């Protein structure tokens, strides 16, 4: 069950992060890996990095076989909407393959040649451009490839709750095909409500809409924004179908597609609640740990066993349980303020107290993450990573609260002394395995059977019922 540490996916070089590290947590003496499907044998096995890319082409074709594309005429224009996040799942090649196969099938079934790919970025202005270059998308994909970002030209979208703002480049075609990935990422925000539609209020939206999602709506209400945009006449007139790269915490399991967005969302949500729910609740059981960030993304979004660090950080709440008042966030604090429990507001994120130290071997600045060093001893590896954090306008005080180590080895040694634990979990971009110290791995193995039983018998039925999802719906 516990094996020598498995090498994580490679890190894409980026202007947003330090030079990819040659020493990673999996390289440290004594580190091990514990397999996701060994912890939870019932979770569907998936492809890891370097596996199953060609099969993704076939599973995409299979998924699209039943999709109706009759409304797309040869003379029409079609935008395939891509999320650059998809390129950071494993090494991004499965997502690229799905996109290629999708475009090819649309061309074959409709005779339409005017197929364009729109790659939307997460936060930064140049993120998507980097992805296009690194993955050679302009050569690999058969169609024009263009990028867009949150500050790009807006498109007002009239919705049931008023005008919201999308990105003009996303919608500048007769038809749109929604082609994201299903990995749940920041589920403490979306809480698996309209998960598969979220890109309409995020990747495909201008920053004003994203700001409302995060800033002025509680985290259940916010998930209405993507529904409002998707249901708008503008989007409904253009929406052809959706094609989604499927995953479990073990890796990539294929592709699903449907003309009915809500049916697809229910189908995928049911499986995500089951598969990710188990690993999520297991991670939430961790009582003490040193967390290591080690991949080419923002710390919150770096995976370990398919679970993003943000899920550990917010792990003291069950974000899937919709009865938990505002699993995390601004409105949680407002409630505490009104009740008198909290006199002042000194933090946005509620850090899981099980996190005793954080080591940053490599990660992107660019999102506000200063709550981490303010509340948890934090060690930054390398002057280049520290310089990037110093320069980062979203974390202007980060390095006032963190220390620098010259190497990952010395950082881990220091963190161990400060944290008083030898339990280490590495967020290194892995699916399929959790890279950990032996004591952490043993702890996860010991806890997994009870977590599995509780999810199957108690939590999953509750999560599904709260969302009105039929466990048997096809």
């Amino acid at each position: 069950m516990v094996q020598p540490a498995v090498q994580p996916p490679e890190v894409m070089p980026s202007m947003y992060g330090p030079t990819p590290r040659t020493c990673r947590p999996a390289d440290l003496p004594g580190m091990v890996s514990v397999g996701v499907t060994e912890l939870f044998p019932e979770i569907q096995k998936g492809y890891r990095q370097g596996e199953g890319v060609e099969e993704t082409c076939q599973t995409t074709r299979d998924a699209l076989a039943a999709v109706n594309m009759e409304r797309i005429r040869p003379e029409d224009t079609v935008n395939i909407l891509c999320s650059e996040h998809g390129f950071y799942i494993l090494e991004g090649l499965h997502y690229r393959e799905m996109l290629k196969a999708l475009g090819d099938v649309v061309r074959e079934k409709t005779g339409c040649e005017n197929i364009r790919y729109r790659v939307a970025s997460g936060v930064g202005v140049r993120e998507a451009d980097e992805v296009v270059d690194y993955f050679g998308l302009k050569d690999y994909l058969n169609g024009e490839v263009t990028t867009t970002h949150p500050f790009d030209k807006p498109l007002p979208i009239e919705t049931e709750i008023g005008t919201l703002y999308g990105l003009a480049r996303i919608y500048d075609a007769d038809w749109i095909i929604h082609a994201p990935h299903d990995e749940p990422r920041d589920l403490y925000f979306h809480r698996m409500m309209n998960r598969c539609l979220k890109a309409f209020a995020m990747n495909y939206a201008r920053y004003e809409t994203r700001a409302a999602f995060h800033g002025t709506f509680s985290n259940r209400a916010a998930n209405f924004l993507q529904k409002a945009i998707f249901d708008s006449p503008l989007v409904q007139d253009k929406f052809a179908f959706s094609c989604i790269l499927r995953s479990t915490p073990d890796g990539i399991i294929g592709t699903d597609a449907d003309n009915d967005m809500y049916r697809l969302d229910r189908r995928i949500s049911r499986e995500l609640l089951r598969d990710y729910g188990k690993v999520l609740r297991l991670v939430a059981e961790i009582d003490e740990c040193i967390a290591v960030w080690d991949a080419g993304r923002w710390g919150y979004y770096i995976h370990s066993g398919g679970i993003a660090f943000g899920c550990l950080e917010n792990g003291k709440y069950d974000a899937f349980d919709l009865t938990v008042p505002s699993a995390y966030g601004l409105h949680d604090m407002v409630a505490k303020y009104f009740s008198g429990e909290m006199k002042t507001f000194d933090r946005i994120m509620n850090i899981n107290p099980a996190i005793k130290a954080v080591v940053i071997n490599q990660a992107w600045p660019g999102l506000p993450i200063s709550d981490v060093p303010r509340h948890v001893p934090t060690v930054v590896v390398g002057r280049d990573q520290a310089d990037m954090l110093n320069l980062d306008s979203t974390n202007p005080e980060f390095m006032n609260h963190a220390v620098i180590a010259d190497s990952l080895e010395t950082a881990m040694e220091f963190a161990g002394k400060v944290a008083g634990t030898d339990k280490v979990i590495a967020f290194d971009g892995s699916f399929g395995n959790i890279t950990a110290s032996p004591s952490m791995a043993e702890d996860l193995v010991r806890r997994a059977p009870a977590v599995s039983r509780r999810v199957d018998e108690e939590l999953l039925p509750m999560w599904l019922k709260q969302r009105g999802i039929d466990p048997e719906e096809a």
Partner: protein
Amino acid sequence: MKIVRFMSRVDPEKCNGDKRCEKLCPSGAIKVVDKIAVVQQDRCVACGKCSEVCREDAVQMVRRIQPLTLAFDMESVDPEKIQALCAQAGLLPDLPLCACTGTTVGEIAAAIIDGAKSPEDVVVGTGAGSGCGIYCMAVIFKLFDCAGVQIPKDPRWNSLPLTSHDISEEIAKKYPAYHFDSLT
């Protein structure tokens, strides 16, 4: 509050005057004059977007000799007016709404009461919006709207003063799963 330790510097030899930087600058610090970008140092909040977007690599972030402090003096504004504006917006004045700088709702309300006319003024006056430039902007739009200040038209922003409190009773009843009317 934000202590700004860096600022943008333009290499005029590399700048092609394409205005990509100007179109993204949240504080109006960088403007293209005679086809060359020029930085007004006392307005540069070091968000770095100009450097990020420049395809000519013409904008570098350099350390300031004297750091610039972005903060609003709350004592200069009647606290009752701050409370009233925040209440109208349905927001608590102590809430640190800007995750990047910790700027509170009350500071932004105070800056608007004190005469801020645009998001740009709020960015320079309080520090809010000088980081990611995304997450706190909805609150800024909401406070301007409640103060009755019409922000000038500008391609950098579209006022979206929408909060969950603004959702109509009809919509809330139609979609009860979203809990518009509660804190959950």
